[in-house]
C-alpha cells in the first residue's frame, strides 16, 4: 500500500494575532509548524502502513524552509518526502495548489491520499476535494475512523451535519480526516535520525512538467482585492446602576424587542 499525506506549513499559533494599535501581525518568534490537522492524517497513514505494509510519502507545496517539516514528518513514520517549491507556484489559490499537488500524485500513483480536514490558517478545506477531482478519484471528507482497509477498498466513519455515516470507497481514493481520528505519536530518537536521513525530493514546476498557466498566481482564478480589520460599528448604549436596576432595564429591553 502506497499512502501519500499532504501537509501544509502554517504559523505556530492557530491564529495570527494583530497588534490593535499598530495593526500589524504579532510574531512570537516561534517557527512555523505542520498544520495540526495534517498530523492526524500522517498518523493515520502510518497506522495503515503498520497494518498492511507499504510506504508513506509526505508532500508539501511551499517555500524551501518547508523541508524541515517534511523531515519532521519522516521522523514520525513517513518514509520519504517531496517538496514542490518554485516561484512559479507562489501566490496559488486552492485550485492552483491542488493542481500542482495532482501532478506529483500522478507521478507517484498512491493508493490512498490523506489530508487534514483543513488548514488552520486558511480554513478553506478545499484542497482535498479539489485534488481528488483533478485526479478523477473519489473523496470522503471529515473521516473520524477507519473501520477496515485492504488493497482494494476502504471503509470509514465520517462526521456529517446531523450525525455519522459509514461509507465505503474503492481505492485509489482521498480522505480528509478530523482531529478525533487518532492521537499522533511523538518522534522517537531513532525516528529523528531517520527523519534527518530521509530523502526529501525537491521538485520545480519544470520537474513536474507543470502547465504554467495553471500554477501559482497565474493559475489562480481568485484574487484577494482588499484586506481590512473587521469594523466595530454600533455605538452601544450603556446601561448603568446596581445589578437590580440593570436587571430591570434589561427586562424592559427584552419586552420591547420580543
Amino acid at each position, binding site marked *: 500500500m502506497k499512502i501519500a499525506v499532504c501537509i501544509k506549513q502554517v*504559523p505556530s499559533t492557530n*491564529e*495570527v494575532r*494583530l*497588534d490593535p494599535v*499598530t*495593526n*500589524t*501581525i504579532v*510574531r512570537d518568534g516561534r517557527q512555523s509548524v505542520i498544520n495540526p490537522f495534517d498530523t492526524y492524517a500522517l498518523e493515520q497513514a502510518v497506522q495503515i502502513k503498520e497494518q498492511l505494509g507499504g510506504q508513506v510519502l509526505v508532500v508539501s507545496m511551499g*517555500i524551501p524552509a518547508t523541508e524541515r517539516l517534511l523531515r519532521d514528518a519522516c521522523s514520525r513514520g513517513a518514509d520519504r518526502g517531496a517538496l514542490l517549491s*518554485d516561484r*512559479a507556484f*507562489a*501566490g496559488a*489559490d*486552492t*485550485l492552483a495548489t491542488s493542481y500542482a499537488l495532482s501532478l506529483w500524485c500522478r507521478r507517484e500513483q498512491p493508493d490512498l491520499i490523506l489530508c487534514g480536514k483543513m488548514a*488552520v*490558517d486558511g*480554513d478553506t*478545506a*478545499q*484542497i*482535498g*476535494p479539489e485534488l481528488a*477531482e483533478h485526479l478523477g478519484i*473519489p*473523496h470522503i471528507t471529515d473521516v473520524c475512523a477507519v473501520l477496515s482497509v485492504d488493497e482494494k477498498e476502504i471503509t470509514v466513519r465520517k462526521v*456529517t*451535519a*446531523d*450525525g*455519522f*455515516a459509514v461509507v*465505503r470507497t474503492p481505492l485509489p481514493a482521498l480522505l480528509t480526516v478530523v482531529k478525533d481520528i487518532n492521537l499522533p505519536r511523538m518522534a522517537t530518537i531513532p525516528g529523528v535520525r531517520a527523519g534527518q536521513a530521509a530523502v526529501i525530493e525537491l521538485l520545480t514546476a519544470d520537474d513536474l512538467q507543470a502547465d504554467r498557466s495553471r500554477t*501559482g*498566481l*497565474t493559475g489562480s*482564478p*481568485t*484574487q*484577494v*482585492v*482588499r*484586506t*481590512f*480589520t*473587521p469594523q466595530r*460599528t*454600533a455605538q*452601544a*448604549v*450603556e446601561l448603568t446602576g446596581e445589578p*437590580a436596576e*440593570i*436587571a430591570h432595564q*434589561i*427586562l424592559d*429591553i427584552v419586552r420591547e424587542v420580543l
Partner: protein
Amino acid sequence: MSAYIQNDLTKCVGCGLCQGSCASGAIALRDGKAVIDPDRCVLCRVCLDTCPVGALTLESDAQAERTADSRGIWVFAEMDNDGQPLPVGLELTAKAFALARKRESCPVTVLLFGPSATRQAQRFIHAGADRVIVSDAPVFREGLELPFADAVCACIRQDRPEAVLFGATPFGRSLAPRVAARLGCGLTADCTVLDIDPETGLLLQTRPAFGGNLMATITCPARRPQMATVRPGIFQTPESPLRETGEIEQLREIPAPGPVELLEKTLVEAGESIRDARVIVSAGRGIGAQKNMALVKKLAELLGASYGVSRPLVDMGWADYSHQIGQTGCSVAPDLLLCFGISGAIQHLAGIGGAKTIIAVNTDPDAPIFGAATYKIVGDAAAVLKALIEHLQQQ
C-alpha cells in the same frame, strides 16, 4: 511566468508597516528600504494594502481571460434526511434575489436535488428564485458527492451562470470544491459578506482570514462561474414571498451513482438547536466559575431562550460543543442575544453577525464584544445574571 511583490525604492519611505503586516516574515528593512525575500514571500498580498505610499505592487504577467457571456446567479440548495431543504438554501436564494436586482436581466436559479425536491420547489420561488431545477431521483437520496457534482456541472455547462452559491455546510464544502476543480473555476470558502458590482457582475466575496483577525475581500475576475460557499445563518429568510410564480424544471439527465457507497447512517439528536433560536443567553469565561453555568441555564429557561457559550467553555468541558457559538461552532441569528462574560474574540463575533439586538455584560470596558453590542453593561456578569433571575422569579 511568475509573480512577485515589487518595491518601488523611489517611493518607499522605510516606514516598516509592510514588515509588520507580513505573516511570513519575508520583509526586512535594509538601508531604510523594505526588502522582500522571495524565498519566504507567499504572495498573500496583505502588504500591498498596508503601504501608505503605494510603493508595493504585484508584478505579474497573468493575462486576464475574456469572460464568457455568463448570466444569472445560481444557488445549490441542500436537503436534509427528511427531505426538507436546509434553511441556508432559502437564505442564499433571497440573497441571490437581492444581488440579481442590482444587475440587468440576471435571473436566479436554484438547484434542488433530493427526495421530494419537486414538492419543495415552490418555497424557493417564494424566496426569490425565477427557476428551480429539481430532481427527486433516488441517486440523490444518500447525499454522496459524486452524483451531485455530475448534475451540478452538467447544469452549469449548459446554462453558464455568472455565479453559483453553496451553503458552507459540511456537504456544501465537500461538493463545491469538486465542482470548482472540474470546471476550473475559483471558489471562495465560507464567505460572510457578499456583494456584486452592478456593471461587471463581479462578485465581492468577503471572508475572515488569518483566524478572523483580518477580513479579506476576494474576487474572481476572469473565469465563470464565480463560486462561493456561504456561511449559514448570515442572511435572512424572507418572511413574506418575494415572488409568486416561477419555473420548475426537471433535471434532464440523471447522473449514475458513483463508486462510493453509503453503508449506514446514524443521526445524533442535536437537542435544542441554538442555530434557529429567537432568544439566546450566552456565556463566556467572564462568568467566573463553572457553577454559574447553572445561572445561565436558569435565565435561559425563564426567558424561554436557548443557551450558548464561547469556545473556552466548551474546551473546559462546561458545556457541550453543540452549544458553541463562533467560527468553529455555530452561527446564530436570534432577535435577542444576551452575552454574559464574553470578551468577543473575533472568532466569536464571526458567529453572531446575524443577531438583531445584543445586550452584553463584561467587566472590561474595552472588551471587543461592546463593539458589536446594542446595549453594554460594564459590570460583573454573575451579579447581573442573579439579579435578572430574581426579577423574573418575582414576576
